[in-house]
């Protein structure tokens, strides 16, 4: 239905306005969103609380209805069709599963909703339990599950129909580091198997570790979108010097150098362009430092996120 280069999820001028009161008050949750998610990639969908991430996901799943604009999933605008629904797995944020059911019963119920039955259903349950490393707990009641185990069962229910697209809302929030790593590893494996993942998250470090592309949403507007290489490339470089003695850092600062770190006898200076680089080398020589190396410095996703939000706030206030 669509080629490998066509986006599997595409929105055009997608807008959502909520009526919030009897007096006809309205809130724009999403403004002209143009989003594209490509096959076999992990797209990190970022934004602070109330920025419109969950609204976007609910629109993609047909849980709420757009005010204007269009949604195309796997080449079709009929997002309610069985074809589309069978190819989307969804893990909501903080999802609830009844305590009285066993892990495999939850999966059986959701599998049945996809029309899976008999041997095919049980084979698939075995596969997803294996994938999320929950085979050992399949017959245990959910009330005996830890938060990490519940999240893994949630992921298993999203995968039960072997969908092409996975939409995950805050998949690692509230989990301990080991559980986070487990989930992260599973998501990377799924991407490598050719699945497309849209991950909404606050966990910037997690997203940076596994995403191919990211989009940052703020106040319902997609502020930036692109690959991590495109967005996080920086002309900043770090100049590393050795032989730093007491008081040398202050001396460098007094002469206009930007010291970003000092470890034992090593001092690290940040420069933004070639002119600053030459000046830093001269400055180092003048205070008796020995040049070790010059390395390009990549901006972190957190820095990009903060910069984008700050810029948006400034634009709004001006």
């Amino acid at each position, binding site marked *: 239905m669509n080629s490998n280069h066509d986006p599997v999820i595409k929105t055009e001028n997608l807008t959502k306005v909520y009526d919030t009161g009897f007096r006809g008050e309205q809130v724009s949750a999403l403004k002209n969103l143009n989003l594209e998610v490509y096959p076999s990639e992990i797209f990190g969908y970022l934004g602070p609380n109330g920025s419109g991430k969950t609204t976007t996901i*609910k629109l993609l*799943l*047909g*849980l709420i*209805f757009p005010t204007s604009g269009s949604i195309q999933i796997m080449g079709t605008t009929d997002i309610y069709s*069985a074809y589309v629904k069978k190819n989307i797995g*969804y893990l909501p944020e903080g999802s609830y599963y009844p305590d009285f059911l066993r892990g495999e019963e939850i999966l059986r119920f959701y599998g*049945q909703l996809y029309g899976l039955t008999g041997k095919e259903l049980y084979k698939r349950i075995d596969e997803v339990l294996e994938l999320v490393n929950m085979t050992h707990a399949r017959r245990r009641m959910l009330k005996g599950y830890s938060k990490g185990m519940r999240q893994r069962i949630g992921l298993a*229910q999203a995968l039960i129909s072997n969908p092409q697209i996975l939409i995950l809302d805050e998949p690692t929030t509230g989990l301990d580091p080991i559980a986070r790593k487990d989930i992260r590893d599973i998501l990377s494996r799924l991407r490598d198997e050719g699945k497309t993942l849209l991950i909404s998250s606050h966990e910037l470090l997690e997203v940076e570790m596994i995403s191919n592309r990211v989009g940052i949403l703020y106040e319902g507007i997609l502020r930036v979108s692109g690959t991590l290489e495109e967005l996080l490339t920086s002309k900043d470089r770090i100049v590393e010097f050795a032989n730093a003695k007491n008081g040398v850092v202050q001396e460098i600062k007094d002469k206009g150098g930007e010291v970003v770190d000092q470890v034992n006898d090593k001092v690290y200076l940040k420069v933004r362009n070639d002119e600053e680089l030459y000046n830093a080398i001269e400055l180092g020589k003048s205070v008796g430092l020995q040049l070790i190396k010059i390395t390009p410095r990549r901006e972190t996703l957190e820095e990009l996120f903060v910069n984008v939000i700050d810029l948006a706030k400034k634009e709004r206030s001006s």
Partner: protein
Amino acid sequence: MKSLLDSIKGPWFIAVYTWREGLRRKTLVGFLILSLLVIFGATFMTSFINQATVGDVSTDMDLKLIKDICVTTISIFGILITIFISASVVPTEVENRVIYTVLSKPVRRFQYLFGKFLGVQLIIIMNLCLMGGLFFIALYIKQQILPTLLLWSVFLTYFEFLIVSALTFAIACASSSSVLPTIAGLFIYITGSLTEYLKDVYNRSGQTGEWLDSIIGYIAYILWNVLPNLQRFSLKTQIINSQPNDPPTDVLIPQLVLYGLIYAVCGYILAYWIFRKREV
């Protein structure tokens, strides 16, 4: 044929899930246990009275007491369970977000609603069977006659509950909490049981010639026509006063079944009409 079966399978799985979940609701189980205790207790209590009295008159009173207590218990606890479960199944799923994972699967909204409604009916039928079954056994032990009239009564009571359930369910589909639909369900049941009085109000209106009197008369007339008349389903008087194996009299069972089904279908259509564009 295959696609029809497929479209029924989804609601059936949701119905079974709803039924299993309903069995774990503490309030519902509490009502059921209480009602069974009352029915059991009534039998025990009247056996005790019977030992202290002599003669046919007291035995007759004893039976009437059992029947009165048990029929009233089935009505009261049955309707409480019906309203409670019908008012809460959809709002609870919206609140705990289970609905997100279900509606994101290949399940249409009408299928989801049908499944939930079917699950509610399974719970109501199970409760009626348990309460009616215990009453049936108690009556049979007392009289050594199969109380077939009781079976007809339980059967008609189900259709009475079906109407209240469908209308409460429709209101619950518009609500984000179960409080409002529960109150609405109680209102429907109470007014539905008093529709004969509405007819009286209409008949007596207009006698004073005042405009307010006429308006109240018209409102009563409209409510009398729109609201279901739940009294029609009651065989209580006959159960108390007749032999247990007498056939039901003064009721047209097929018409009552049809009457109940029409209200239930209207309730479900209303529920779907509300829910089809609801943002969850």
